């Protein structure tokens, strides 16, 4: 079978596949795409040569690719091997070779305890489910909080319609949106009112993050096994690749006594979504942590904040006028050990978007 591990020499062909087919871009592949793939698949800190990325090699032509990034987790304190699959793409002229099925089958047959992806679309979810994957609902539910509702509406119109009329209307509405959003953020009766939190914020470093997760993750059976070198690499990678925004905001929050009560990490995009990679903290301070996040994202120009639901925070997210949706990428998983799927489906895990392949995206 033509499925084999990805080699460094394959990167130029994989980069072209990624750029022209997966990203649907025209023109030559930017050199930065090759650097991104090279770094992600050959220098990530979790490399495990027994869990390689895969290519479908049709007589020298790379017809398909499935990126695999192992991540370290602990199950009740014991190490677990998780292989995250992503950047799955097959060249259209080779799709009747069923290259996609062969790549997925080889990936599933690897030595990992759990195969997982955290950003499957509807099509790949359907394909993966037919091959034996399970949709993990607790980690597929997303929350969204509108921060500039009028701009959100305008943003939605401009993204749903590519007509010149829609673009003109969006442009013309800009000043009105600004005025409406300003009122929405300040009126005391507004559901979009942004409240300044009393918590004190400072830059979050990786050692503090590791301590925060250890202190506030609760008592789940599965959690990420963080260490400073790999977290440093990950946060630097996210910052440089700009996968979901222009910059990364990483803040730790303290109460008036200086005690750490929470933290968050999100992609900051002026005029776009504030995509939250991880948020956590003390149960007693959830509302204040959310207030701080929303105010910070709003003051940096975001039109809405968005993240994965931690079910322990569901009532507070609802209380802060967030709405919930599954339209944000599916988490699907496969394991030969049914207890892993059961614990994921019961939400018995501390998993965030920092722990999968969502955070390993390439932006422009």
């Amino acid at each position: 079978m033509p499925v084999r591990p990805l080699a460094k020499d394959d990167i130029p062909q994989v980069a072209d596949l990624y750029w022209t087919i997966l990203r649907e871009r025209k023109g030559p592949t930017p050199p930065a795409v090759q650097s991104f793939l090279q770094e992600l698949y050959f220098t990530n800190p979790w490399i495990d040569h027994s869990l390689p990325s895969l290519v479908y090699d049709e007589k020298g032509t790379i017809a398909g690719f499935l990126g695999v990034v192992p991540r370290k987790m602990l199950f009740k304190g014991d190490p677990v091997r998780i292989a995250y699959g992503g950047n799955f793409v097959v060249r259209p002229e080779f799709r009747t070779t069923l290259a996609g099925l062969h790549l997925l089958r080889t990936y599933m047959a690897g030595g990992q305890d759990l195969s997982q992806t955290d950003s499957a679309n509807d099509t790949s979810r359907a394909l993966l489910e037919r091959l034996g994957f399970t949709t993990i609902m607790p980690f597929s539910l997303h929350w969204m909080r509108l921060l500039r509702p009028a701009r959100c509406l305008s943003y939605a119109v401009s993204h749903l319609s590519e007509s010149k009329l829609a673009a003109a209307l969006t442009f013309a509405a800009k000043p009105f949106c600004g005025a409406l959003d300003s009122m929405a953020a300040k009126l005391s009766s507004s559901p979009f009112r942004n409240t300044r939190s009393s918590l004190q914020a400072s830059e979050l470093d990786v050692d503090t993050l590791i301590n925060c997760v250890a202190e506030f993750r609760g008592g789940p059976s599965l959690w990420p096994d963080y260490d400073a070198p790999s977290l440093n690499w990950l946060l630097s990678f996210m910052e440089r690749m700009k996968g979901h925004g222009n910059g990364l905001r990483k803040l730790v929050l303290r109460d008036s006594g200086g005690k750490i009560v929470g933290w968050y990490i999100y992609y900051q995009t002026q005029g776009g979504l504030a995509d939250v990679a991880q948020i956590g903290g003390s149960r007693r301070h959830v509302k204040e942590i959310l207030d701080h996040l929303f105010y910070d994202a709003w003051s940096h120009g975001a039109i809405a904040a968005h993240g994965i639901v931690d079910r322990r925070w569901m009532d507070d997210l609802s209380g802060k006028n967030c709405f919930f949706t599954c339209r944000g990428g599916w988490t699907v998983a496969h394991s030969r050990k049914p207890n892993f799927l059961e614990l994921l489906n019961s939400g018995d895990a501390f998993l965030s978007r920092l722990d999968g392949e969502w955070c390993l995206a390439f932006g422009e």
Partner: protein
Amino acid sequence: MVNVNNEELLGKVRTAFKSAFDIDPQTITINTVPSDVSSWDSMGHVTLASSLEQAFGLTFDVDDLMAMENVKEICRIVQSKLGQVQGA
């Protein structure tokens, strides 16, 4: 036991192809391979498997799915599964 060349079996396989790919079922022969049907890609393959499951009242596992590389193999697997059902 149903024979591979059984026209009834091939007829039902053709119906499953029509349902999955919306193509003229008469274009499907025992020698048809995925490259003969433009929409028979990985996603099309799992749609076809669902159509075959409906047509024959069978369930295919992942190994069956992977072995269904062409119409001849599909007929062989369906025949074998039908034999198992009849023998049960």
